[in-house]
């Protein structure tokens, strides 16, 4: 297990290093001179020179990259050009919206998908199976931001149960915060839950055909016991893979959904920064999201090894 862990850790570090180079090159090297890009075409020469000095653009590229990385590792993400505040503080603030939103959506998606997938697989061919397969087919095809808009129309504008957008902040209590995140989380969760329910169903169907399930039944276990002790455990590998993959889609999807509900999260931050040409903020947010995705995949790999000891032997 230790060998497996170290191997994965090494590949994690390499992935992050390469990703950081890609992001750095794309945002700081490709545009030529970021200072004149950020200030636009009407900027004065001396303003550009000052910003260039400010951003440290006068030192060689390699040194700048090392400076950026060592800053990131120490939690120093640089200073936003537009707001003149540390990027780390801005991200920290927005993170309290985006991360709970992604986790909330992931929880909802799992809570919906597991029972639906299990129901469809155990009652295969029944009306329940057809219903689950039909609804999930729609759930996969629906654009989640459109679904979000329809929910705003129904629950915020017509029924007035929720506010149409905005976030009151966690200081007003957990319930108030969660209530503001409920519609965004549901709209994020719907497509993911649909995919997950289908994966759960097909993984479970594969497992239910296995000989050990028949053996388990033959030795006198009830359907429920067989399902819990044998079938579900074995169906978890593909399901875990998808949950891991979904987390990155949830983070990215949250960026779009935040726009529908005017939530002050990372997504809003990144779009504001793009329109204000605040490259430092864009660079840091993208790096942070990639870091999150890579870390989650690392965690999923370790979770595999815990669930299935056979995988530890392979590289």
């Amino acid at each position, binding site marked *: 297990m230790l060998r497996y862990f170290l191997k994965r850790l090494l590949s994690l570090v390499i992935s992050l290093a390469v990703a950081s180079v890609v992001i750095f090159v794309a945002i700081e090297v490709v545009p030529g001179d970021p200072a004149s890009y950020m200030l636009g075409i009407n900027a004065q020469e001396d303003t550009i020179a000052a910003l260039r000095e400010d951003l440290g653009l006068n030192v060689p590229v390699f040194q700048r990259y090392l400076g950026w990385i060592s800053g990131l590792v120490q939690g120093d993400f640089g200073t936003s050009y537009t707001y003149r505040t540390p990027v780390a503080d801005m991200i920290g603030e927005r993170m309290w919206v985006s991360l709970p939103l992604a986790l909330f959506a992931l929880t909802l998606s799992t809570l919906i998908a597991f029972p639906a997938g299990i129901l469809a697989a155990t009652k295969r061919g029944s009306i329940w199976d057809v219903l689950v397969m039909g609804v999930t087919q729609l759930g996969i095809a629906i654009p989640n931001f459109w679904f979000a808009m329809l929910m705003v129309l129904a629950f915020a504008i017509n029924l007035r149960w929720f506010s149409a957008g905005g976030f009151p902040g966690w200081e007003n209590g957990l319930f108030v915060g969660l209530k503001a995140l409920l519609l965004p989380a549901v709209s994020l969760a719907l497509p993911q839950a649909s995919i997950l329910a289908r994966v759960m169903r*097909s993984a479970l169907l594969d497992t239910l055909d296995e000989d050990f399930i028949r053996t388990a039944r033959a030795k006198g276990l009830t359907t429920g016991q067989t399902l819990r002790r044998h079938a579900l455990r074995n169906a978890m590998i593909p399901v875990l893979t998808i949950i891991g993959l979904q987390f990155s889609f949830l983070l990215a999807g949250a960026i779009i959904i935040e726009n529908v509900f005017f939530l002050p999260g990372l997504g809003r931050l990144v779009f504001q920064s793009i329109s204000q040409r605040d490259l430092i903020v864009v660079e840091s947010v993208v790096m942070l999201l990639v870091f999150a995705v890579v870390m989650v995949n690392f965690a999923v790999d370790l979770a595999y090894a815990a669930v299935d000891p056979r995988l530890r032997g392979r590289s």
Partner: protein
Amino acid sequence: MADQVGVTKKPGGWLRTSLGSRNLMLGLILTMVFVAGALVSFVWTPFDVTKMDIAHKLATPNTTNWFGTDHFGRDIFSMIMVGARTSIAVALVAVSIGMFIGVPLGLAAAARSGGWGDEIIMRGNDLVFAFPALLIAIMITAVFGPSATNAIIAIGIFNIPVFARLTRGAALTLWTRDYVLSARVSGKGAVRISAEHILPNITNLLIVQGTIQFSLGILAEAGLSYVGLGAQPPIPSWGRMLADSQTMISFAPHMALFPGFAILLTVLGLNLMGDGLRDLFDPRIRRGRG
């Protein structure tokens, strides 16, 4: 369920099966409707999509404007026809980028399985997987500004590892087959074997995956143009129509309904078609998408 459907090997069997498959037929019809709409829009639309008619703005669906008009009085039905063009073009080119780069990479990785080339290709794939299409689009847009081309590039890059992985996985099993072995014995090189023996045998798989990536591409394009990272005005696009409708949803919900249904039905059609094709090509494969 489709996995219980047996395919007869009689001549014409596949035709009967494909006609008998409800998924495939429904998917084909839906897809054809939108492709036809997009094609017809090149020569005819009920109204000019760039023509504003403020006197008739925000009209609800009626006999003249079938889907109503938007806040500038433009005909929504015509805009959806032209928007189909944008969606299909972006998704089609993006899938082609993914296929033309991803498939050769996957073939190369499988041919040199276990070597350093394979390792580099697969690790490179892992890396691209860490960047969801939206993040690629954000980076490109931050530097070059938003456009349909940038959306295509972003979705295309995201498609590369999908096809590379699929191709490598399928090709690896084929490399152990006897007919590949006899081709090697007869002195054919890796490139020729990949082109003549491996590729033809994974075409079905690629078509099915291509259909699914096409539908994902339509969704991604809609999402990107919704947040302003895709096609720019005056080119109509479904995602941007939805973005425009958002502030008016309380008094003009029709503006949000039609473009949304257009996306939903196109994606649904492509997904059903993908499922149907998969069952048709390999009835042994159990249904259930990942």
